[in-house]
């Protein structure tokens, strides 16, 4: 494991922790952090002992967004595009078979919120503040925010946040569906840990199958999604050495 400069990575009992660690700038996301997060996520993906990944921030915030002091430093737009797909850190998040849990507090803004939205579950501290200020700054989301927010909240609530850039507190974030749980700040890491433990106790192939069904099924017609689900459940049963719970006609996509 390489020494990380902008994050902390450790694992214990099947739970890997990625802690964003630039507290003096509210864990602003820069290219060094991108490289560190990418390596840490690859490590978590490839480590057979890791069953769940928890992403959190050290200091007062989860992540205040992209480090704007770096903007405009790419030699050209086309070079920036090359770099984006050369190290597709967000694609790596989405391709993970293991559950990703974001435990957020303080500022969870811009790229920080986008990173959290690429996780499977989000737990927020009561002091968490959410916003997508990009358009107010002449920017637009580039870590999936224009895709993940509307898919989680619906187009209108998503556009409300994306166009106004307004701040949303934890209570409203829960009502909007940005996060699934809110806990007192002092309880955040304990709650995240216990949720992570319950996720780590699950059967990894079953978790992977559910994640695949959700991720790929959501972009399909319902009929295609049902076929995908049936196929995944059959394969899962085979992997686990038990009889399939899916009737064969459903798998083959025909009437009984």
């Amino acid at each position, binding site marked *: 494991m390489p020494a990380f400069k902008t994050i902390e990575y450790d694992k214990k009992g099947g739970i890997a922790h990625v802690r964003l660690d630039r507290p003096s700038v509210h864990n602003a996301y820069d290219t060094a952090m991108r490289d560190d997060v990418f390596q840490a996520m690859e490590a978590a993906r490839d480590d057979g002992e890791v069953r769940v990944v928890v992403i959190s921030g050290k200091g007062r915030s989860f992540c205040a967004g992209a480090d*704007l002091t770096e903007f405009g430093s790419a030699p050209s737009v086309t070079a*920036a595009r090359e770099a984006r797909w050369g190290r597709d850190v967000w*694609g790596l998040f989405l391709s993970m078979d293991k559950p990703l849990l974001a435990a957020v507090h303080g500022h969870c803004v811009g790229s920080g919120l986008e990173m959290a939205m690429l996780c499977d579950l989000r737990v927020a501290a009561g002091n968490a503040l959410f916003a997508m200020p990009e358009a107010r*700054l*002449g920017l637009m989301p580039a870590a999936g925010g224009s895709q993940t927010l*509307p898919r989680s909240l619906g*187009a*209108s609530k998503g*556009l409300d946040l*994306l166009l106004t850039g307004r701040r949303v507190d934890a209570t409203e974030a829960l009502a909007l569906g940005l996060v699934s749980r809110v806990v007192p700040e002092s309880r955040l890491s304990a709650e995240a840990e216990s949720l992570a433990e319950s996720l780590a106790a699950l059967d990894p192939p079953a978790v992977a199958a559910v994640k695949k069904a959700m991720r790929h099924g959501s972009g399909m017609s319902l009929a295609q999604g049902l076929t995908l689900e049936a196929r995944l459940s059959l394969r899962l049963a085979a992997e686990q050495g038990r009889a399939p719970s899916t009737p064969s006609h459903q798998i083959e996509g025909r009437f009984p």
Partner: protein
Amino acid sequence: MAEKPVTLSQRNGIAVIRLREAGGHGRLSPDAAWELGRTCERLNWDASARVVILTGCAGAFRFDLEGEEPSAGAPLPRSNKEACGGRAASAVAGLKAPSIAAINGDALDQGLELALACDLRVAAEGARLGFTGVSKGAMPWDGGSQRLPRIVGPARALDMLLTGRLLPAGEAHAIGLVNRVAAPDDLQQAVQRLAEEIAAGAPIASRFVKEAVYKGLDMSLDQGLNLEADLSFLLQTTGDRREGVRAFLENRKPRFVGE
């Protein structure tokens, strides 16, 4: 001469489209729909229009099916102008700039379909929203059966469509059908504030965000992520993006020019 059915006023980057027709017609008249379409098209070529507000005089969102509802025996439209009465909402949804419906009275049937075609909806307390058509043997025909479930989910949409129940503004807010509720006297101000908030952003960025959201929802997530990335790189060529970052680092308000 009769008053124009659709009027447009623009100030400080905010365009207001006002429907002058009162309710009870069953649908927007072909004249009004034609005008609305032309107005939206014009705004799409007008870079100074950063936000569009759609509103009416009292009750103008009300187009319930009391009157001349389209029936199976009705003659086919004879002209483009006549035909566009049925696709007024598409013109509104085709607006490139962010749009807000200011719902100052009941938004029923085509009135609600027009509001659904806007990105955001602000309703006055006391306003009700719903589809009354199905109980009278009709169905939505200006996008309602498609846009409503995409905004509130299929179960809530079917509840509204099949029962014809009218939702009070508060309940509409709770299910995400409207984004804000304001007292009737404060509605205009609340909408204006929301429009100013959005107009303070960079216009090209806002249009790109809107494009990425709607086109992205019609794609797989992977395709949507590609679209977002490409639009964000295209945005990097704008002066407004450089200005926005500079202003942030200099801790001042940005001055966006839409270039």
